[in-house]
């Protein structure tokens, strides 16, 4: 019955393809084209070859935002995902109230990054922030500080306002764990393997495909960071918390459209490299 309706198939694909062409294919081509132009959006574009790319080499803000993106990605892979795995393992053992906790841990993932950023602004505030109040009330008043305003705490604070919202990946891991044959755990139990050993030797290896997907999603999410740095620190102090999206946004607002698009091309390239690396890494391990 396939191929009997060429016209119908084509007609039904047209709307989605049109949207995709206008909002994905054309913009990416446009980015690459304008990345070799000097362009302020008012006077006509001027071809400058690879000048914009050369400018990247000397752009300290770009370097800092690149480093921050990598650090954020590392935090996602080595802290965020492992925490999600541990909590998923615990809740999968059907401890009392596991359904309640699954819902509760997932809820922050439904709330906009903007609303959460507003909340953490209040938590980190140097004058009346919750964190400082908490420290003072337990006798650690000496640790109080303006968490988002100081050079060495601003970036960790930015990571801290997101890293514990593990619900999204936890749900993915839990559904994977639920497909594992319980007989595996039973026989391990008979052989005398403790709960921890069971998780290490049975659950973790079988979770590998889920981990590969989670790493991919977490890394691509890292590239989308904008709201939290924009609202909490605006990249400061002294670009300590700058990320690529915010750098692009600032260049766009400064009417450096050409250079903004060069940065955007870099963002896409980094995303592509990440996807390829993750696919490669997890494929090799499977063999």
């Amino acid at each position, binding site marked *: *019955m*396939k*191929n009997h*309706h060429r016209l*119908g*198939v084509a007609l*039904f*694909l047209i*709307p*989605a*393809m049109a*949207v*995709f062409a*206008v*909002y*994905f294919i*054309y913009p*990416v081509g446009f*980015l690459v084209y304008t990345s070799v132009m000097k362009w302020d959006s008012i006077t006509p574009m001027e071809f400058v070859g690879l000048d914009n790319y050369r400018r990247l080499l000397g752009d300290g803000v770009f370097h800092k935002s690149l480093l921050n993106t990598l650090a954020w990605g590392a935090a996602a892979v080595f802290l965020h995902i492992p*925490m999600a795995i541990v909590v998923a393992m*615990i809740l999968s053992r*059907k*401890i009392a109230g596991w359904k309640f*906790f699954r*819902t*509760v841990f997932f*809820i*922050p993932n*439904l*709330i*906009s990054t*903007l*609303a959460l950023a*507003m*909340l*953490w602004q209040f*938590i980190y505030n140097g004058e*009346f922030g*919750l964190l400082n*109040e908490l420290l003072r009330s337990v006798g650690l008043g000496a640790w109080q500080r303006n968490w988002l305003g100081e050079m060495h705490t601003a970036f960790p604070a930015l990571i801290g306002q997101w890293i514990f*919202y*593990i*619900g999204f990946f936890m*749900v993915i891991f839990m*559904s994977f764990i639920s497909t594992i044959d319980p007989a595996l*755990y039973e026989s391990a*139990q008979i052989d005398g393997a403790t709960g921890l050993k069971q998780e290490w030797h049975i659950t973790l290896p079988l979770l590998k495909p889920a981990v590969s*997907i989670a790493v*991919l999603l977490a890394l691509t999410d890292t*590239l*989308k960071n*904008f*709201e939290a740095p924009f609202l909490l620190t605006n990249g400061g102090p002294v670009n300590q918390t700058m990320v*690529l999206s915010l750098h692009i946004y600032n260049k*766009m607002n400064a009417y450096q459209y050409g250079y*903004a698009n060069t940065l*955007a091309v870099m*963002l*896409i390239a980094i*995303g592509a490299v990440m996807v390829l690396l993750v696919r490669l890494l997890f494929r090799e391990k499977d063999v």
Partner: protein
Amino acid sequence: MKWSRPVAKLPVYAVIAFFFCVTILPILWIVVGSFKSSAELMSSPFSLPERWHWANYEKAYVTGQLGQLFVNSVFVSLLSVAVCLWFATMAAYAVSRGGKWASAVYVVMTAGIFLPINSLMVPYYLIASHFELLNTRWALITTYTAMGLPLTLLLVYGFVRSVPKEIMESAHMDGAGFYYTYGRILIPLIRPGMATAAIFQFLLCWNEFLYALLLTSDQKVRTLQVGISMFKSQFNADFAAMFAAIVVSVIPIIIIFLLLQKQVIQGLTSGALKG
């Protein structure tokens, strides 16, 4: 499951308690804080309000024009969900009935999921400006529909594929044409799946901030997210009123989630399994 796996109680509950404290308590604290006066919020942040009062909500509604923002968010989100699902179900059906090139189109479009959408700030601004949509709700509806299309297509196609072949074939035998099969047979069958995809698209539209900031500038067309971000200056750091606005912006999402939790989790799982 009859057989339950044993757990070391104390450390396990310590971990759960920790995550409970860092994830949900601050959010509950916002809810409580929205019923305090601003002065009380500063002076005794951890206490329950002395008197629960709705003044902050009133202020957010009157000064912050929360009602207008809310209506804009609903309008943008619902229309974008409708258009996105319409295009995606048509495309998914076409891919399931089409040949190799239709499948190739599917692969290319779903690869769009991995494109860092923040990189398209300048092009999306120019596209909206070209179609003279800047500073209208239509700029957001079109942009969000496009942004959500790859994931919606992936989810919907998963459900289309899970429809038993026999049903489609017997429909064909009975003389059901291409278009009739789509509207009268396929759509009713995948309705639960469409609900899942709809929730994800709704979440995207409701919570999106960057493009709402770039493409709209007038209070009349702004959505909740951008509107609330402006409260900071509007209310002169009146946090209590801001909290009230945040609570209002979050409530619809929480209600939808609690009602349709099963579909959300199912969608996450099926989406991830195929990813």
